[in-house]
């Protein structure tokens, strides 16, 4: 076991865990932030996506020991950022979710995409969202919600 100090959604948290524990399980079981989901454990589905220093990261394969001082943002914290809020709103506006289990990861990937590419093409969406699995296949509305969020942030700028 080892102690780690994590910067999480803008505040500091200390956890005492096995250094090999993936960030995902630290979030879910130590910090009780269950919005980040376990889907595969091998970074193949994207349900566990969080931001590590603003980069969309699959938390199921990143040991907590590698995080260091990097800033972590999860689905519970992304709404405090105007872009994150805009994406969440667009998701609600387009009634995207079905079972909803993958949507935290989808939203985190979409926010990271729009941060770097505020006006993404279909191809940009294919590439950035291409690793986020949705078994309900809500992909058509995910595409629509990203386009809507993109318009919203342009309108606000």
């Amino acid at each position: 076991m080892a102690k780690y100090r994590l910067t999480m959604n803008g505040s500091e948290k200390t956890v005492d865990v096995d250094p090999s524990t993936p960030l995902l399980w630290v979030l879910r079981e130590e910090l009780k932030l269950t919005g980040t989901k376990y889907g595969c454990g091998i970074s193949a589905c994207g349900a566990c996506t969080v931001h590590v220093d603003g980069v969309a990261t699959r938390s199921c394969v990143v040991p907590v020991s590698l995080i260091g001082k990097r800033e972590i943002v999860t689905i519970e914290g992304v709404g405090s950022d105007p872009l994150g809020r805009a994406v969440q709103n667009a998701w609600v506006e387009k009634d995207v979710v079905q079972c909803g289990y993958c949507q935290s990861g989808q939203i985190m990937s979409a926010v990271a995409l729009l941060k770097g590419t505020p006006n993404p093409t279909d191809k940009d969406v294919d590439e950035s969202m291409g690793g986020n699995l949705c078994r309900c296949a809500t992909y058509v509305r995910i595409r629509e919600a990203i386009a809507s969020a993109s318009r919203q942030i342009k309108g606000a700028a």
Partner: protein
Amino acid sequence: MRPATELNRRSFIQLTTAATGGLLISLYLDKPSLIAQQPPPPKVYPPDAFVHVRRDGHIVITVNRLEFGQGVQTSLPMILADEMDADWSKVIAELAPAEDVYKDPLFGIQMVGGSGSIAHSFQQYRELGAKARAMLVAEAADRWKIPPDPCRTENSVVYGPGNRSSSYAELADGAAKRPVPQTVKLKNASEFRIIGKRVPRLDSHAKCDGSQKFGLDLDLPGMKIALVAHSPVFGGRVKSVDDRDARSLDGVRDVFEIPLAKGSAVAVVADRFWTAKQARDRLKIDWDLSGVERADTVQLLAKYKQMAATDGNVAINRGDTKAMDRVPAANRIVAEYEFPFLAHAPMEPLNATVKFEGDKAEAWVPSQFQTMDQMVIAEVLGLKPDKVTFHTEFAGGGFGRRATTDSHIPREAALIAKRLRGTPVKLIWSREDDVRGGYYRPMHVHRVEIGIGRDGMPVAWRHVVVGQSLLAGTPFAMMIKDGIDETAVEGAKDTSYDVPNFRVSVHHPTVNVPVLWWRSVGHTHSAFVMETLVDELATRAKVDPIAYRQKLLKADAKKLHSVLELLDQKSGWRKTLPRGRALGIACHESFDTAVACAVEVSIEDKRPRIHRATVAVNCGLAVNPLSVESQFQGGLGFGLTQLVAKGAITLKDGYIEQRNFDGYAPPYIIDVPTTVEVHIVPSTEPPTGCGEPPVPVISPAVVNALSRLTGKRYRTLPLTTI
């Protein structure tokens, strides 16, 4: 009443549990008396079990179903709230625990399946809403000392003559004490205020900010996490286990063998998931595989093809069996189709949490089969079912996987909780457990021979289906009649295409691979066969694929005719396709809902790229058109699971060759249509299901487009090469 051989999935559970008093389910369980004690659902549903008006004006409506994406947590309350004239903005929906009053009115057990949620509970929820409204009106009228007739209701308020008004919140306590009316007048369709509107989901916000709790998110004081090491070959038994390395890890609480329906397994219990996983990885288990059949999909395929060459048990035989002999060989099509095993792989891994306290227990399960899951937990713990408080947890998808006929997940959880008396235990099946755990859509081979008449229409059709029975060896085995499991031939034997000489037969081999219904069940493969062959006939006849289908369909296939006509109007784009793109058409009726689909497809990087899909649906009255649209947009994507390159589970010498989403990869965003337009045939007929009917049409539609691009026929799934 239909004749017994005509039974379909919608009615068989009702028969099993109601008509036979659950006898067959009992036979399957160790303690036969339990299901016999299950009373049928009540004839009259008490409104207080379904609707509760809070003093603050919120109206809590109980949903007698699992919510796992299909949207009933919104649609069923819409129905009740409409008849009740409730203020929709104040409605809160809750999932019901396992109780008799929440059983499906038709199936007789509490469950989601057969696309029956709205179809079976539409009338029930309307009556509940109307009764609640009548009780509120009666209470207001009593207070005002007037008869109830002149009162009207709107947005949770009763209005009386002379500017009298009273809110439902004010009336609720008194209304609840009043007798429940036996009969109530329901609204005319023209009076609906919520039903038929595009109403956004009630669970949307919670599912976008991370606050929605699913079964896997459950956190209880003192809770432990359990993982189970299963035999790598189905049915293997633990010969010996060396758990010293596993037990040496900090936070491991127990390691022990548990019995399974077939063979046994090793459970690992720890404080945390990661500890449990590491401990399980360290177990050294010697498996006894003696006497266990080692399924091998290459060998199975060869065997199935051999079986398909001979007639099976005859599911339907219409006309003259010798008609084929009169068709010259040049006018015949002989087609052989191959379908693999498919895992459901819902996004939320399978799980169940159980706490055993000696004389009672509590369970938290994202379950499609509450009644049976509760019963099995009770049976394992030696309790009566009503001593098991059963909470229905939100599920991250399911597609049939959470409706197992043996409740094996809750059973494992109960076995573990029994040993850890007093401690809540959450059993988690990792993604590897899920992909390798069986309960797949069965592998199938179809062989079809078609004789074509001079007019280009089929005159003779001989069809042999080979695939494991879903029902054999389950509590529903009594539904197998004359060696025919209807779930294997549905969509083929009951086709609405009018072929004068028509024969479908089926073989059900026994294979050591657990199988299960997979969203749309038999239609997953039967529709693919029917719709690709009919398209091939249209191409040979040089007739437009929509027009050909319209000509071949029976006149009384009204729903299918209605969707083909609507599709014809709405897919005008199909007449001016860009170079390199082709049109694919398919239509199919399942679960009483008819669907027609047009897709625009090109080939990019040797894969089909689906640029758009236009869908026409006839599902009777669309209770929530927004939700119907969601189900169709998503259901098409789900249906593509069997077309993607890695959409197959294969076995070699008993071992499953896939492990996770690397080897078994369902459709990602690039694999599905970029846009999907859904058009609903206006209707006031009773609503029919929308969960499963989207699935069957998409794969044949895409493949029909590919055939137009390449001239080839695609009869082997998954589609590994084009």
